[in-house]
């Protein structure tokens, strides 16, 4: 399905410092992480442990103070901001907790927004956005304004927007943080579908229930990776070559929670049905 020889993301001793003098602190204090193509990673951890900072750096919105970041085999350290923007336009899709749709643009224009920066013609962009919206069962909502949508619909539009430029990585910062549990599971199902198609997803979440969708769960503490667990739950993942992290991780203590995973597997299937019912 995909070549797992070169990891999509390789972080080596990544550090990010904020503040100066007395107020100086490290939001990231030496993170080593290797992400293979097709992984669905959930990052957990208490507030202020550096999850979002990590996601911002992976998404090239921020630069590390120290350390190395290799994206698709290329070190992005010494690449200009303009090149970063280009990488964001082509390889990275963002999903935010507060959706961040542009209020004055309608649904299809919002979805087509990332394509503006990839040099496609206006018509092509709308066509692709429209096709993407159909995938998310939002075909009839194309000309709605963002405020006319429910929270779940809004987030699905946001996911469609993140996917429209066919990125290699999708970064989701608490995508379900503003949604009720029912909508949350719908969104997670959608993300799971996206993942099944071979996309790499890195998701920050506070909700432990959602980690069941992930193929790998990372917990962070004080700017460091606390635990890193592979959780293979579904048959698709079993088919796939098992992604292995090549580097020994900081405290690679595998937190085993197979029981929980199995327990939620059954639950997940039911929610899938529910979700499909909800979207129809």
């Amino acid at each position, binding site marked *: 399905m995909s070549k797992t020889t070169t990891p999509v993301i390789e972080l080596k001793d990544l550090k990010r410092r904020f503040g100066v003098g007395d107020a100086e602190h490290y939001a990231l204090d030496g993170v080593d992480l290797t992400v293979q193509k097709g992984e669905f990673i959930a990052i957990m951890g208490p507030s202020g442990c550096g999850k979002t900072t990590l996601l*911002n750096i992976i*998404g090239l*919105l*921020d630069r590390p103070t120290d350390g190395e970041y290799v994206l698709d085999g290329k070190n992005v350290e010494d690449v200009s*901001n*303009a090149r*970063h*923007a*280009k990488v*964001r*336009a*082509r390889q990275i*899709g*963002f999903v*935010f907790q*507060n959706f*961040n749709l*542009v209020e*004055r*643009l309608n649904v299809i224009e919002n979805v087509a*927004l*990332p394509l*503006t*920066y*990839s*040099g496609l*013609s*206006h018509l092509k962009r709308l066509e692709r956005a429209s096709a993407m919206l159909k995938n998310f069962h939002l075909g009839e909502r194309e000309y709605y304004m963002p405020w006319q949508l429910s929270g779940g619909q809004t987030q699905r539009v946001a996911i469609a*927007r993140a996917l429209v*430029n066919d990125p290699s990585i999708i970064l989701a910062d608490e995508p379900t943080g503003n949604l009720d549990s029912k909508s949350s599971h719908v969104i997670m199902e959608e993300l799971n579908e996206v993942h099944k198609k071979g996309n790499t997803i890195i998701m920050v979440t506070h909700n432990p229930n959602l980690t069941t969708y992930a193929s790998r769960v990372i917990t962070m503490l004080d700017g460091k990776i606390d635990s890193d667990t592979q959780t293979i739950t579904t048959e698709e993942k079993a088919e796939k070559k098992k992604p292995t992290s090549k580097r020994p991780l900081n405290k690679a203590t595998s937190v085993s929670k197979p029981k929980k995973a199995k327990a939620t597997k059954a639950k997940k299937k039911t929610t899938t049905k529910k979700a499909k019912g909800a979207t129809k």
Partner: protein
Amino acid sequence: MIGSMLLDHYRTAKHSLERARARTLLTISGISIGVASITTILALSGGISSIVTKQVDSVGENLAVVRPLTQQASLADLNNPIAQNAYTTSPLTEDDLATIRSLPETELAAPLMTISASIRFNDERPTYSTLVATSPELAEINQLELQDGQFIDSVTLQNTAVIGAQLSIDLFGTEQSIGRTFQIRGQTFTVIGILTRINQPVNFNAIDFDYAAIIGFDSGKLFNNSVAQVQQINILTKPGTNMQQYKQTLTKELARRHDNQQDSIVLVGKEIAESNSQFFDLITVSFSSIAGIALFVGGIGIMNIMLVGISERTREIGLRKAVGASNGTIMMQFIIESLIISILGGLMGYILGYFVAFVISMFIPYDPLLSWEIAAIAAGLSIGVGALFGLYPAWRAARKDPIESLRRYH
């Protein structure tokens, strides 16, 4: 690629400007007032210059004019709009005229001597009239045509005059006034010719011939204690004369005769029109600077509104950056937005400016000038203002941190 990018920027800008319609319109009107005032001023002052230029052109390239060298026009002249040399003694003398006539290249030369004297018929006194003493050559040099009678010549009597068509009407109530008499400083003059109406109140002689009474040079001197007081000498050179060379020769010759004092100036070709409109130039410059201030204020208006818009759209900027907009792209987007405001303002201002100019021209004796230069200046100014005052807000927008911007709620 760049074209489609610009189109996208245009689309985005249009969208956001339409959303804040009232705000956009107010900003546009700010710019348009500035551009309108500049357009009006340039159109009107251009109208004056073009009249004089056209006259000089029609007289031909062999025209030269000698004037006393007066001080450059200064702001003080705005208080004192009578010609600077009106009460001073002109350095030009009859001898100078003789010198000019003696030059081999000179075909014809005529002095112009304006005399301040009231013209009256019985107790009727026209509101506006000019008394000019000159020599018969003037008719040919200035291509003055007569609708009736004859021009003054060497054999006409001293107490005869040629008058402008409008003066004839003002004095006698008719254009048929040959043989009628009128008084200048108590002396009686007989009308021997009526000038064809030319309707050129602004010209390089600073005399409105429609309102002028022209008398012989010798008669004129009698009103001035028999001393010539020459304000200007009009010269027609022989065909094929090198005018620049003629100018040099004449300048040198006149200086030599005036103890090497440079107290007169020889003008040829286009210079004739330019120096005559010095006073108007002054008005143009002062009014243009006021208009410039209006434009500057309009520009600040653009900057202000752009900054407001950018701060309102902080999250959108953050999002655009997150989905792949580079700093340059964001900057371009906002510069284009301010350009749209300023270009629309410029267009409106240009139209408004000409409207005002045409309204004003109903009350003054000349028409505004329609030329591509004025359009280019209006366009250049509005684009310049848009780009200049859009630059800082656009730069502010471009360097917004996407993480900070996305975190903001409002």
